[in-house]
């Protein structure tokens, strides 16, 4: 098995490289992605190897990056758009929700909107405003879009390739705080399905579900809980829309308890959706209401205090304790 250790940033780079090698119609477009290789260096070296026609340094306008990717899709190209930071996707919001999401339908199936919009999302890097947001539920609410998030280098490598090959538009959320963490990447193995969740750690007492940067935090919480005698089953949702509810329900039917973790505030969020769906599916197995550990309902705070906004190990364990406190 050809397995190698690399960072998530490198895994995305390798995944994009492979997608471009496989299909000459794959293009990359974004701000500063060519010569600079992107502010996170995800596209490092790709313009040198594939040329300026395939790795496009865009003029500075997100609406145009996505809008022209739509036109390129109509012409048969698959464009991977890079949005420099989460907070800068909103100028493209109209193109994404009105056109990217709906053109397959409006053209009665003639147009294929096979394009990927990569967004470095979530906080934890000590950045200034607009560089740490979690916009996934805006997109998850829009029919026509799919939203996924990688939490490990291996998933980054495979999920970006699967997303490029997919015929529906994909919002690809990358947990920027994990870009520089290393992990094993299996370069040949058959990857897990793009829309499947994965049990990252098996446990008995409480099912804890999250995605992106929260996965590692949940695993750390599970380590601590173990010491205190509570066994957490940790699930990486991987696909935020659609959700792999079968995998999640199987776990909740076993544990009877549910905690969801996300950096986005909980109103109308992915976490709320998971709790509602699993309550419906697992009503008779649940021994306590599903709890959400989320960002607060305020604009993302200045980063000196972001660690008290983002779900921490302590806040996850507090929710675990509360769910364990219900008698049934």
């Amino acid at each position, binding site marked *: 098995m050809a397995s190698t250790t690399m960072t998530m940033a490198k895994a995305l780079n390798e995944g994009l490289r492979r997608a471009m090698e496989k299909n000459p119609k794959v293009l990359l477009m974004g701000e500063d992605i060519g010569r600079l290789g992107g502010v996170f260096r995800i596209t490092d070296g790709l313009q040198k190897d594939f040329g300026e026609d395939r790795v496009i340094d865009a003029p*500075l306008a997100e609406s145009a990056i996505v809008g022209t990717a739509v036109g390129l899709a109509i012409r048969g190209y698959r464009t991977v758009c890079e949005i420099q930071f989460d*907070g800068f996707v909103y100028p493209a919001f109209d193109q994404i929700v009105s056109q990217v999401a709906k053109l397959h339908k409006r053209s009665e199936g003639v147009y294929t909107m096979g394009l990927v919009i990569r967004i470095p999302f979530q906080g934890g890097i000590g950045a*200034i405003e607009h560089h740490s947001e979690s916009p996934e539920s805006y997109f998850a609410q829009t029919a026509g879009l799919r939203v996924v998030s990688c939490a490990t280098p291996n998933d980054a490598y495979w999920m970006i390739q699967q997303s490029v090959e997919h015929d529906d538009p994909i919002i690809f959320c990358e947990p920027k705080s994990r870009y520089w963490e290393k992990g094993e990447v299996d370069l040949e193995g058959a990857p897990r399905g793009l829309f499947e969740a994965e049990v990252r750690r098996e446990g008995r007492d409480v099912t804890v579900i999250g995605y992106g940067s929260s996965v590692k935090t949940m695993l750390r919480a599970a380590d601590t809980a173990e010491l205190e005698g509570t066994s957490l089953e940790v699930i990486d949702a991987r696909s935020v829309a659609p959700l792999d509810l079968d995998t999640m329900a199987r776990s909740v039917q076993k544990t009877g308890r549910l905690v969801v973790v996300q950096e986005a505030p909980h109103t109308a969020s992915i976490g709320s959706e998971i709790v509602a769906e699993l309550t419906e599916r697992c009503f008779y197995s649940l021994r306590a209401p599903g709890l959400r550990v989320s960002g*607060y309902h305020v604009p993302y705070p200045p980063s000196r*205090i972001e660690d008290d906004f983002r779900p921490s190990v302590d806040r996850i364990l507090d929710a675990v304790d509360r769910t364990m406190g219900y008698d049934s």
Partner: protein
Amino acid sequence: MIDEELVQLLTPEGLRNVNPDYESTLGRDEIVGLYRDMVIIRRLCNESTSLQRQGQLALWAPVQGQEAAQIGAGRALAPKDFSFPSYREHGVAWCRGVPPEDMLRVFRAVTTGGWDPQKYRHSVPTVVLGNQTLHAVGYAMGVQRDGAEEAVLTFFGDGASSQGDVLESFVWAASFNAPVVFFCQNNQWGISTPSSVQSRIPLSHRAHGFGFPGIRVDGNDVLAVYEVTRRALENARVGGGPTLIEAYTYRIGAHTTSDDPTRYRIDAEVEVWKHRDPLERVKSLLVREYKVNKATFEKVAAEAESLALKLRDDVLAMGRPDPITMFDHAYAAPHPLVDEGRREMVELGISGGSH
């Protein structure tokens, strides 16, 4: 520089340039004042870069090379005017009276604002490129409806000039003949992207297509920037409508302290622009024409030095905010989710209590 359209009143060597349309109205003391502003802002900027290197700031966006553009524009404002900056306009903030430590609060990541925008008539920084240009036009429409003789000045970069918001703000300003002046600092780079990717023509030419004047000024010539901006603001105040000013300049430093410009531009280019230093040319004018002596320059340098030391002390004294402050001002009126969050934070022992 061999650019016919470029308004320049002072050559890079500090010699007077006669321009048929613009004439410098400033005397010795005022020019010394502009020089002082530029020296101070450069020194404060360098101090901020070192504070960032020492881990005391999350980020810094240097202004080096653009001092004349910012000070010339900032000093052209009348006290009643209002300005809408992007994120690099430290020089303009200085002219508006914003205390230097307040400019650094955002970069120390202890707030998302930093100063009272009404008090200084200078809005809070805007990071999402181009958003503020529409705010400026809206404010100007308010000025118009109030029948006030005020003008609005808004800042954006060559990169931001490609954003829909900026181009829409041109349409709006023209449509309503709003008393607004658009000040584009073309420092030739938007992170790694050269301005040639944003425009094939001088950015000032864009204004003509929207139906209002566009003027290209040497952004490293503080006298020219001052006169061009002053005239445009005056024109706006008396109903003359919008103007676009393109200040042609250069970003000497990195985009921000997170950036490594050696990856995308050559040193030789930077060196050329260092020879067009905006401070040196005013200094040579002051020496040659006004016989300003060494003591005066030393006094300015000493003042800049002490302001830099004070800035350092002020920044180091900025502690980590109580996390409960994140709930302040999220809404103007009470909100149940905000109350719930505050309560949770206290219960978890993250904060001692309310604010």
